């Protein structure tokens, strides 16, 4: 098991993407509204876009046509290329149902040590 300091606690903000590296592998780090910290593989599982350039937002729900409810601000990651949405709560795509694409974000174990945000691999 190796520990990697990926950023400082003071860098974290809800909705902000912090790019980092684990060795040569890119990851992104963000803080959820709950205060939980996410360290996520830095490439989109769809076609490998660099998630550093994505955005963290909410997602929409609706029970009637042309009416949108915006919810979960800070809990949805959108890919910078195709806009595919992933939940930062569980890493799953908002639109399920793909059988042939490994459409799930990779989460890393992350903890705070002093002022450091540390990922363990």
């Amino acid at each position, binding site marked *: 098991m190796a520990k990697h300091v990926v950023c400082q606690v003071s860098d974290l903000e809800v909705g902000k993407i912090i790019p980092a590296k684990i060795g040569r592998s890119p990851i992104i780090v963000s803080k959820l509204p709950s205060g939980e910290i996410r360290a996520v593989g830095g490439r989109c599982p769809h076609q490998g876009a660099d998630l550093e350039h994505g955005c963290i937002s909410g997602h929409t729900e609706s029970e*009637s046509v042309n009416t949108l409810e915006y919810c979960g601000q800070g809990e949805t990651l959108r890919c910078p290329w195709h806009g*595919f949405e992933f939940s930062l709560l569980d890493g799953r795509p908002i639109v399920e149902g793909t059988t042939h694409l490994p459409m799930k974000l990779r989460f890393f174990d992350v903890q705070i040590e002093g002022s450091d945000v540390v990922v363990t691999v």
Partner: protein
Amino acid sequence: MHIIDTDVHESFASLKDLVPYLPEPYKSWIGNGAWRGFSQPFAYTSPGNGNRADVKSADGSASVSDYNLMRSQLLDPYKLSYAVLTGYFYPTGLKLQYGLGSALASAYNDYVLEHWISKDKRFLGSVQINARDPEAAAREIDRMAAHPQIRQVMLPVVDDIAYGHPMYRPIFAAAERNKLMVAFHHTTFAQGPYGMGLHYMERHCLIPISLMPQVISLIANGVFDSYPNLRFMVLEGGFSWLPHVMWRMDREYRQGRVEVPWIKKLPSQHCRERLRLSTQPTEDISGEDWGKLIDLMGTDDILVFSTDYPHFDFDDPNAAIPKSLPSGTRDKILWKNAADFYGLDVRESTIPNQAAE
């Protein structure tokens, strides 16, 4: 083996056949020749013009309006279990005078009940409506739905506002509350993205491209989700395009769901569960390619057989659906999928059919 024909075009001989069924002032208008009906903006190029050249009345004249002829050329020789009448007189084509359009739709429905549907239990009927006046259309659906042989609402392909638009919701609500299905058929005014082309061949090739947007519109605008009991039939609009449309819609939904979250299932799943496509005109592909296409669709529940009688591009059930297909799949195409769609009881013992053996 049974056969259900999901696209059979009955007709009147003349627009004036509707006069007895029209209220005033429209009765006088049509009776006096104030409108001569729709005219296709092209010339047919086949030997029988728009129809099979062998569809002739006893006096040798071309016919599209004779029940006995249809019976002798289609219903009996092919031993059809059911034939779904779909018309080709679509008052929605009138872009003005909505009252006249709605009255014509009602008159046509009454004409078809008396001159066609009442003559043969094998007929299933479509409610013709003026979709441009959706509230009036809904009333017409309510009026017609009581007849036990009426099984669907016919929506002709329009060239301006696709059927997912919210304005059409009363029509879908009426179909759902009356437990009717919804079918779509091309028209003489259906267009592709560049119009009709410059030749009849182009116009005919472009027909599927007028149906695809209807499917996309219905799903994108939540019609499938809003009316969960409705099922949708695309008639004479091709079928080999469906894998593309399903894949494309799934992809677009994944990347654009933020805009349309009222869609609750993958569009491809909606299609597999509740969209059906009639097979005529088949594209003369091999049985092997039929199998590939069905594999790509992900189910053999989607395709339903149709002849398009009496039109010139008629499909003969003995020839059009390859016998090399697995028998279970061929049965689904020829009748089981349609029986399921319309809730028909087709029993081996009561309606024997060996025409296609």
